[in-house]
């Protein structure tokens, strides 16, 4: 009862968002239609954003909505639409056993982690509340200067990579590749390999 007495609004918030997140998460992994999964994921993300708020991490909560739910998940949905993927075809699952395996593995993993979590008790939260935009900004441009800059490399790379991969290969390209492959694999007349002498 003592515990119950301590229940505050934040607890209710937590429980609400948490149960929403868990249900949505299960929705992600149990749905057969990718779109439903995606929606589930969006729900999870939003609930998490809510939870971030309970942790006074307003900035993170904000970008969670903007970046994750907003950008990334839109991208997902976009691709799902683009590829016009519907429900999975009824083809038999070639890896059916994994479904049965998933349960015990799920329980095992969660058991191990929970066992460890049990040891942490109920530490008091720090009086510092670090989640303000100011805090984050200051950290970002001091201690996290280098990682922050490095993310630019990451993003640039991601742009290059995804553009390259997603670009449709033109017929011209294909022809060119075929010609090149043929040329490269033609028997050569006499071209003594100019490389090193092995035993030198």
């Amino acid at each position, binding site marked *: 009862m003592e515990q119950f007495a301590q229940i505050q609004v934040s607890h209710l918030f937590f429980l609400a968002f948490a149960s929403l997140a868990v249900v949505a998460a299960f929705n992600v992994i149990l749905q057969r239609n990718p779109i439903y999964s995606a929606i589930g994921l969006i729900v999870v993300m939003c609930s998490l954003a809510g939870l971030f708020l309970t942790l006074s991490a307003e900035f993170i909560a904000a970008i969670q909505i903007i970046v994750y739910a907003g950008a990334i998940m839109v991208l997902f949905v976009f691709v799902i639409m683009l590829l016009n993927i519907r429900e999975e075809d009824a083809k038999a699952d070639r890896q059916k056993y994994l479904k049965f395996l998933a349960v015990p593995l799920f329980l095992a993993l969660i058991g*191990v*982690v929970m*066992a*460890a*979590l049990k*040891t*942490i008790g109920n*530490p008091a939260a720090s009086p*510092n509340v*670090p989640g303000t935009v100011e*805090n984050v900004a*200051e*950290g970002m441009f*001091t*201690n*996290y*200067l*280098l*990682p922050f800059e*490095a*993310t630019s*490399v*990451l993003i*640039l*790379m*991601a742009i*290059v*990579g*995804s553009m*390259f*991969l997603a*670009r449709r*290969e033109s017929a011209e*390209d*294909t022809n*060119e*590749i075929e*010609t*090149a*492959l043929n*040329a*490269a*694999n*033609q*028997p*050569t007349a006499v*071209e003594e*390999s*100019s*490389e*090193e*002498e*092995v*035993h030198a």
Partner: protein
Amino acid sequence: MQLTSLNLNYAAIAPESIVSVAAVVIMLVDAFSKKGARKINAGITLVSLVLALIAVFGLNSAGRGSYFAGMIVVDPIRVFFSVTILIVSIAVTLLASQFLRDEALPPGEFFALILFATAGMLLLAGAGDLVTVFLGLEIASITTYVMAGYRRYDTRASESSLKYFLLGSFATAFLLYGMSLVYGATATTNLTAINQAIAEGKVQFPALLMIGAALMLVGFGFKIASAPFHLWTPDVYEGAPTIVTGFMGTAPKVAVFAAFLHTFAEGFNAGGVLGSQLHHVWVTAVAIIAALTMTVGNVVALSQKNIKRMLAYSSIAHAGYALVGFITSEAAPVAFYLLVYSLMSVGAFAVIQLLARAGDQKVETADYAGIGFQTPALSFALAIFLFSLAGIPPTAGFMSKFFIFKSAWDGAPTLRWLVIVAVINSIISVYYYLYPIVVMFFRPLAPGFVKPKVSAMTAAALILALVGTLYLGILPNRVMSAIGGSSRTAQIEQPIPSTDQITLK
């Protein structure tokens, strides 16, 4: 908060900067030049990599220590691993031009990706904080996902890319989860600070630290392709263009090992009750993983018909050997091992790239029947690389293995059985390394052999690998003493940035 206290020193990130800038430059050049600017691209890449190499050697001028609020460190591990990474990148760049020309693949992106990957790996090798480890790792990984699928028209390449991507991200999640738990337990993400926290008994949640370490071990274990997290390796290596296989089989592994060393051998190698408990646990786990990795790698390699797959398993096995060196937390043997492994592995893949012909058409070992004396230089080069991989003197493979075994024997008296396991594995490995040699030299020539054309740049790369393999096998002293300084990683004697500088009040 004074910026100076962050210890901003641009010399400390010079190599990464050079490479990243070069990548951007290449993108620009590629965008604004006509098709066929391959040569320019390759040139820029090479120049930047060489400059980065010089910058790495110049790192010492920055002085040993950590910079950018502890995000990046300058120490022998970083220097040596960076050199290795750059050498691999240079070799792959040299090899790439012929590959791209022969297969008419767009050069700009490829070179840019090599540079991005290199930048990521350099960052990873120098990471002094979990966040830089994560970031560097992701930059390197995501780049290699793309590179694996560089032959977009090729189903196998796409499949390889997808598998690599899915499983890699899966493992990254574990790593990240581990990092978060470690952060929670120690209240810091700085490796040195973590070490100190453990040593000084400031860990609030010891159990979480342990679980976190375990999860990180899983993540690293995946990236270096150790059993049982190795299963992606053969598929991915087989499907990717050979040259990419050569690249991702070596450089990222080297970089991950550097981070692995920084986190485990230095970060999780602290004094105190918890520290020694953690140390004992991870060393034992690594030992078991090492044994498993070597055994699985070597044994399964025995039945491989595809030479790329065979080398993939071999690379698994070699990760196992490197892990044997890892248990002593001694960086020098591992560093030397990985340098040597990179040289011979890149060399071997380079030869196979040539022998397999454009489009990787001939990758069954049986395809190489009797070519030994048809293209002697290439065949003997491959033979030497294979002998080196098998650890037969006077090649570097032997020297590096010896270094590892020696260090493990001395450094971990309770784990000497691991050396025996490693030796037995070396014996098993001889069998399959000999097989391609048997096929090339002892069998009659298979029909349809086409003598590969070897461009000057390819030849240069081969010579680099070959000379390196032999040089390090015969006169390893110079290199060994160069890394000898880091032979026992400093544990606590290193000055660590005070925690108040990296955490905000």
